[in-house]
C-alpha cells in the first residue's frame, strides 16, 4: 500500500485526480480501524495531515469556515465553542481525549455514518460542505451531501475541504444516548435549536435512521415537536438498542432540548 503525503491543497487535489482510488486519511480514527479489521485494503492512502489549508477555522463576514482537519478538541475550545455551542457539546461526547485530539470534522463527514456526532449539530445550523477538485470548488447543503448510510456525495476526484456555517445565534444543544457514560457510539442522538429570530424549531437526530435527519417546525409548535421528531425517525433494532427505545429516547431528548433552549 502506497502513502502519498501532499504538502499543499493543490498537490492533494492533483494526486486525488490522478489516483481516485486513493483513500484520504486525516486523523485515521475511522480509516485505521477499517485497515486493522481487514475490512479495507486500499491501494493507496492520501495523507492530508500536512495540508495546511485544511487546518483550523476562520471567519469571514460572519461566515465560519471550519477546515476539514478541524479536530473535536479544537471545536470544543472557545471562541469557536461559543459560536457553535451544539457542535462543541457534540465534540465533547466523541470517544476519548485521544480520539478527540485526532478525529476531525472532515473524517466524520467522509465516513458519513448515521451515528456521526458532528453531523446533527451541523445540520441544525444549516451547514454546507465545501468540496474541491482539480475541476473546481462546489458547495452542497449538508443534507444533500449525506446520501445514505455511510455514503456521501463526494466524487472520486474530490476532497472535503471545509464546512461552511453561518452561525444562527439560536439557543442550541446536543445530547447523545449510550449505555455507558463515555466512549460510546450513539444509540441515538439529537441536536435541538430554537431560533427565535426565524421563528423556527430545528432538530437533527443521529443513529435513528439511515442518515442523520433534520426536522423543523414553526416556533409555536413546541408542544407537538417532540412527537414529530420521534415520528420522523426510522430507527431499527440492532445490538446497540431497540427501535422502540430509540423512538422513545428521541421524544425525551426533544422535550429536554426544547426546555434547555427555551428557558
Amino acid at each position, binding site marked *: 500500500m502506497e502513502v502519498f503525503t501532499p504538502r499543499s491543497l493543490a498537490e492533494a487535489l492533483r494526486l486525488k485526480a490522478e489516483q481516485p482510488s486513493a483513500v484520504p486519511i486525516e486523523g485515521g480514527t475511522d480509516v485505521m480501524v477499517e485497515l486493522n479489521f481487514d475490512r479495507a485494503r486500499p491501494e493507496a492512502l492520501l495523507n492530508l495531515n500536512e495540508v495546511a489549508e485544511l487546518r483550523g477555522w476562520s471567519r469571514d463576514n460572519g461566515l465560519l469556515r471550519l477546515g476539514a482537519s478541524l479536530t473535536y478538541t479544537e471545536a470544543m475550545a472557545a471562541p469557536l465553542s461559543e459560536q457553535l455551542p451544539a457542535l462543541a457539546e457534540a465534540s465533547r461526547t466523541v470517544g*476519548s481525549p485521544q480520539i478527540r485530539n485526532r478525529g476531525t470534522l472532515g473524517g466524520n463527514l467522509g465516513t458519513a455514518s448515521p451515528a456521526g456526532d458532528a453531523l446533527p449539530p451541523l445540520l441544525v445550523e444549516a451547514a454546507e460542505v465545501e468540496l474541491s477538485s482539480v475541476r473546481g470548488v462546489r458547495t452542497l447543503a449538508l443534507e444533500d451531501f449525506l446520501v445514505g448510510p455511510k455514503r456521501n456525495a463526494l466524487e472520486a476526484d474530490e476532497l472535503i475541504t471545509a464546512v461552511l456555517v453561518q452561525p444562527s445565534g439560536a439557543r442550541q*444543544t446536543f*445530547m447523545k*444516548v449510550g449505555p455507558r*457514560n*463515555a466512549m460510546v457510539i450513539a444509540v441515538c442522538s439529537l441536536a435541538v435549536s430554537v431560533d427565535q429570530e426565524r421563528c423556527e424549531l430545528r432538530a437533527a437526530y443521529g443513529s435513528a435512521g439511515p442518515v442523520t435527519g433534520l426536522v423543523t417546525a414553526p416556533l409555536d409548535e413546541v408542544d407537538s415537536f417532540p412527537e414529530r421528531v420521534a415520528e420522523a425517525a426510522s430507527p431499527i433494532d440492532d445490538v446497540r*438498542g431497540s427501535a422502540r427505545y430509540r423512538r422513545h429516547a428521541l421524544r425525551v431528548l426533544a422535550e*429536554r432540548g426544547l*426546555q434547555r433552549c427555551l428557558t
Partner: protein
Amino acid sequence: MSTPATRRKLELGRVGESVKRVDAVPKVTGEFAYSSDLFAAGMLWGHTLRSPHAHARILSIDISEAVGLAGVHAVLTHDDVPGDKRYGLEFPDQPVLAFDRVRYFGEPVALVAAEHPEQARRAAAAIKVEYEPLELVVDPELAADQPAIHPQHWTQGHGYRDDPRPNVVRDMRIERGDPDARADVSVEGYYELGIQDQAFLGPESGLAVPDGEGGVDIYVATQWLHVDRDQVAPCLNLSREQVRIHLAGVGGAFGGREDLSMQLHAAMLALHTNRPVKMVYNREESFFGHVHRHPGRIWAEHRANRDGKLVCVRMRILLDGGAYASSSTAVTSNAASFAVGPYAIENALIESTCVYTNNPPCGAMRGFGAVQTCFAAEAQMDKLAAELGMDPVELRLRNALASGDELPTGQKITGSMPVEEVIRRAAAIPVPDPEELPRDPIRLPGGAGNTTRGDGVQRGVGFAVGFKNIGYSEGFDDYTAARVRLFADTDGDLVAEIYCAAAEVGQGVTNVILQTARTELELENVMLAPGTTGEVGSAGSASASRMTWMATGAVQAACRAVRDELDRRGGGLASGDEIDLERIYRHPRTGPLEPETGQITTERAHVSFAAAAMRVVVEVDVDLGLTRVVWIGTAQDVGTAVNPQAVYGQIEGGTAQGLGLALMEEIQTRDGLITNASFTDYLIPTALDMPPVVAELVEHPEPEAPFGVKGVGEPPTVVSTAAVMSAMRAATGRELNRVPVKPDDIVFSGS
C-alpha cells in the same frame, strides 16, 4: 562468608506492608513486554481458520489453493494433529482442530503459518471448507431434549449425579433438612444473566519455538503453565519434558486463560515448519478464543418467619455451558454451593444444571458460579426484607453465617467467617449526601452524552453480601511447588532466587512471593525467576482466589527448608556455594459431594470462604434508563492482607467487573453467532462509569492458611453485581431481574 548484615531485620517489603508492584512502572509507561510483543528471529506468523457456523457437519476441507500461496509454509488440519485429537481442561471433549463437525461459531478448523500475518490470513481465506448445517441447540431450556451435540457423554461416570439426558454436562442437587419446610412468608423470583466476557485487554498470543530435538518451548500468557503442558504434550505426541511452557507477559486473565487458546496451534505449526511461530488474536478473534462467564436462568423461593429468620430456600439454576465442558462441572457445583449466600439455613433444595449448547463455550470467570447465584439470592433477600417490612441490612445480619455454622452441603465452617462484621463494617461507612444541582452533566447519568441536567434522575441506595470458596474444591488434589536457591554472590552476600510457576496475571502474585520470601528468609536480596515448567513443579492455577494462599504456603515451606539447611551449615555460605530446595504445599484436603443429595462425604468439600458486603449509590435517569453509579462502600473479609495496596486494587478492579455485568457487559448472540465481537459493541466500564470505592479490609487471619491469608480477587465481583442491582431497584422501583440491565428494561418494564 555471611555477615550479620545479611540477616538484619528488614524495614520494607515484608508480608503485611504495602509494596509497590514490581511491574507497575513498566506497565504504566508502556515498556512492559506482553505476550503479543514476543519476537524471534526467523519467526512465522500463525493464523486460525474458524467456523462460520454454530453447528455444522464438515463435509470436506480443501487446502490445495492455500498451500500454494506466496509466503505460506504450512496449512494444517485435524489430519495433522500428531497425537490425541482432543483436549480439555477437565474432560477431553474439545478437538484440537475440528473434525466431523463444528459445535460453535468461531471454532478452530485449520491453521496457517506464513511469513507475514496478512499472507497467513489470505491463505486461511483460501481454504475451502464444505459445511452442512445441523440442528441448532441454542435454548438451554430445550437442550436436554435435543440431539446430543457430543455423541460421547464425556462428563458421565465421574461421580456426578446420573443424568442420561442428552447435552447435560452436570446435574447437581443439594438437599438439606426438609426442603418442603413452610414459614410465615415466602417470596419468589426469576432471574437471568447474559454472557459476560473477561474482556482482558491483551488478546491471546504467544510464541512457539522448536528446540531442534523434537520438542518445543511455548511462551504464552496463561494462568496455569503446567496444565497447559499436560494438555499440549499428548496432542503433540511428545513427553511432558519435551514441552516447556514459559510465562509471557499477561494482559489480564480473569479465568479466560485457563483453557488453551493458541498454545497447541502455534506448537503444531512450529514443529511442522521447524521455525518459531507467533500467533496473536485480534480483538474480534479473542471473543472466540476463550470461554466466557456462564449465562444463567435462576428460579428462587425464599421462606422466612416474621422475625426474619430464613427457614427454607429453594432454587433451580440453569447454566448454559456452550459447546465444550471446560470447567462447567465445577461452575455448576459452585453456583449451587453458594446459592443461598452467606446465611445460615437449615432447609434447602438447590438444583443446578449445566447443558451443552451451540452457544459460545463458557468456563471460568472471576466469581465462578457464585456471581450468578449471588445476583439472584440477594435480590431475593431484598424482596424478603420488603415483604417483612424489615431493614435489608438487619435481615442479613439476622441470618449471617458464622464460624461453626453448617452450609447447605453439611460442611461445618471451621475457619474464619466474619460475615456479621463484614456487613456491619460496610453498613457503617458513611454514605455521601446527594449532590446538588445544577452540576456538570458529566456527573449525571448519561455522562459525557449530556442527556440530562437533572430531569428524570432518581437516586437509589442498595446493599448486598456475597461469598465464595477460596481454592479448588470437591476432592481436587491441589498443590503448589516452590523452589528456593540461596547462594552467596561474589561479595559474599546472600541472595535468594525463587522459582514458582504461579502465573502473574496482573493480580500481584509476584509481590506476594517476594514479600513472603523476604519475610521468611529475613533477606532483602530476593529475586523471582521467570515462570516456567522447566525449572519447578506445578503452581496450580492463578484462579479460584487461591494463588496468594498457595504460593505463600509453598514459598514459605521452601524458604523454611532452606533456612534450616543454612542453620545446619552453620548459618553461612561461602561464595559459590548454594542451597537449592523445592517444596510442595497442599491446603487441607477436601472431598467430593454425595451425588444425589449434595452432602459432604468427608469433613469438607471446600477449603475456606471469603465474604464481602457492599453498599452502592446510583442515580438513574428513569426516562432514558441511563445510570451513574455514584459511590461504593465495601468491607471485605481478606484474612491477612499480604500487600494491602494490592488488595485495594483487587477490590476496585473486581468491583468494576461486577458493575460491568450489572449495567453493560453482554456477549449477544443470534442463533449461536456472536453479534458484538468488538469493544465498540461489547462495552466495559470506563473511568467515568466507575465511582470512587471506599474499601475496608476485615482482617481475621484464616487459622489454616499461611500468615492467615485468604484470596481476595473474587469476592468483590461476586457481590458487586448484586449490590449495584439492589441500588438500581431502589432508584427505579422496577424489578430488574435480568443483567446486564438495558435502558429498555428501566423505561418500559412495569414496577
